[in-house]
């Protein structure tokens, strides 16, 4: 357990460094002059040269990278080239929005996926199971922006049950914000449910057919008792790793969903800053998203081991 933790904790900063170096190189190779992009086409050559100097764009690449890194770890993330606001407030504010959406989606995902997986597993090879499996498979294969568009047309345009924009008015309470987030969250949930449910189903089937469940049945335990005491835990714990994979999918899926629903999250910011060549924002957004992604992986691995004592022992051995 500790070995795994240390290995992961060392890997995180190393990967983040790699991310930031890659972003730096990427923006360096990008066609077009950042200063020219910022000032617009009509700006004079002199003012472009001035801006290049003040942004430090004329220094050698490693020097610029070292400067950026030094300031970044001290909390000075610079100013956005295009939006002219401090990057730290911008990125962290957007991150808050994304986390709200992702957490909402995850809270919906867990009970739905576990419930459906359990239901399919307990009725395996019956119509219930087949419907859940095929629908889950189809939804899991469909990109989230496609399900999102269909949800928008049906529930926002036709039925008008939910707002079409994910962004609530400024100062709105949490419930109003969540109401605006229902459609984007559901499109993420639909993407992930099938995969998790499939894992839960498989381990439920294995548990139901196991000798200990047979023994419990022979002892005269009722169906609900057997499910509660013997099946539930053995079928849901292995799903933790599937949930972890899907949590990463959620983070990756944020880019398209935020774009579709016009939601000011960090994924949409990452994309916009890449298109605009807004280096400070792109750097910060990429590092923050990367960190989030890896923290989730770590959290999942630790949770899995805490929930399953067998794995704990195996790691010690």
């Amino acid at each position, binding site marked *: 357990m500790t070995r795994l933790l240390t290995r992961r904790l060392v*890997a995180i900063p190393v*990967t983040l460094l*790699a*991310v930031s170096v*890659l*972003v730096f*190189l*990427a*923006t360096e*190779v*990008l*066609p077009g002059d950042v200063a020219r992009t910022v000032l617009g086409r009509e700006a004079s050559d002199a003012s472009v040269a001035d801006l290049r100097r003040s942004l430090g764009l004329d220094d050698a690449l490693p020097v610029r990278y070292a400067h950026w890194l030094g300031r970044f770890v001290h909390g000075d993330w610079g100013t956005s080239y295009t939006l002219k606001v401090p990057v730290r407030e911008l990125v962290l504010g957007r991150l808050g929005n994304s986390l709200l959406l992702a957490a909402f989606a995850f809270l919906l995902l867990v009970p739905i996926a576990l419930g459906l997986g359990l239901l399919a597993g307990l009725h*395996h*090879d019956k119509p219930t199971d*087949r419907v859940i499996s*095929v629908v889950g*498979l*189809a939804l899991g*294969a*469909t*990109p989230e*922006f*496609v*399900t999102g*568009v*269909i949800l928008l*047309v049906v529930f926002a*345009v036709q039925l008008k049950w939910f707002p*079409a924009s994910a962004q609530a008015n400024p100062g709105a309470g949490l419930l109003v914000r969540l109401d605006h987030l229902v459609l984007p969250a559901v499109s993420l949930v639909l993407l992930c449910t099938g*995969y998790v449910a*499939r*894992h839960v*189903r*498989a381990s439920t*089937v*294995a548990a139901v*057919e196991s000798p200990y469940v047979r023994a419990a049945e022979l002892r005269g335990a009722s169906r609900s008792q057997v499910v509660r005491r013997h099946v539930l835990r053995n079928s849901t714990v292995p799903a933790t*790793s599937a949930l972890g*994979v899907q949590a*990463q999918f959620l*983070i*990756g899926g944020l*880019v*398209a969903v935020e*774009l*579709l629903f016009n939601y000011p999250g960090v*994924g949409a910011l*990452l*994309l916009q800053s*890449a*298109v605009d060549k807004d280096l400070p924002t792109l750097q910060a957004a*990429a590092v923050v*998203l*990367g960190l989030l*992604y*890896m923290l989730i*992986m770590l959290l999942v691995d630790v949770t899995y081991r805490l929930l399953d004592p067998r*794995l704990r022992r*195996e*790691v010690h051995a």
Partner: protein
Amino acid sequence: MTAVQERRAVAVATGVAAPPTARRRRPIALSVGAVLVGGWVLIAAFWPYLAPYDPQRQHPTLRFAAPSGAHWLGTDQFGRDTFSRMLAGARPVLEIAPLATGLALIAGTLIGLLAGTCGRWVDELIMRVLDAVLVFPAIIASILFVAMLGRSVTVLVLVIGLAFVPIVTRSVRAATLVERQQPYVEAALLRGEPLWSLMLREILPNISRTVLVEATSRLGDAIFAAATLSFIGLGQQPGSPDWGASVSDNRAYLQNAPWTVLSPALAIASLVIGVALVADSLRARLDAR
């Protein structure tokens, strides 16, 4: 990595995570999937003969026409025929995704065979590098690479294909490790067969089922990735009839002309669901064997 971790990682990475019970065969799912995929492949190949209108032809007086007998799926903001654009949009995605899948399969199979056959430090090195690549969030990398290298079919094929190499490698390696225990491999080793011959002539034919399952699963993922990259504006040039780009271009008209968005969206859905049905049926059949 402990054995359990490793098995889990492989199962998770491949998405195979074989359900331990033999699933009942579903011939209906396979046929439905094959019809959907086959239909779109034919359309991608022959759309110029099938489309009732030129997908790029603008018609200023016919903007946002609702679906009718003349325009089955209506027209878009330039008066272009939505149905014709939906047919034409099948081509870009069905060019990029199979090429990317092919790249991932060839590279992943060779690397996986090498890791599994050689074992020891070669295996260790390859798996460590792959672990490092897998922690890198694919979406960030794709955005960066496409922004850096520019939008083109080649770039998309490379970005999507390379992203799937570690996944293919893991399952091919896992299958190779099983074959490695077989007597025929030992016999080949004793005969002094060279490594390449052992990999490609002895082991590869025996793991062809794994490769086939990988091919269909990764094809579905590649279509998913190509459509998403295109939707977020990193695929085809704007104005292209490509499905992802069409959804993105038309999402502003969702209220008044939902057909312009729904047609490409449902086209994507039917293709990916078709591939998923085929992939799942193949996997279930091969597992049951």
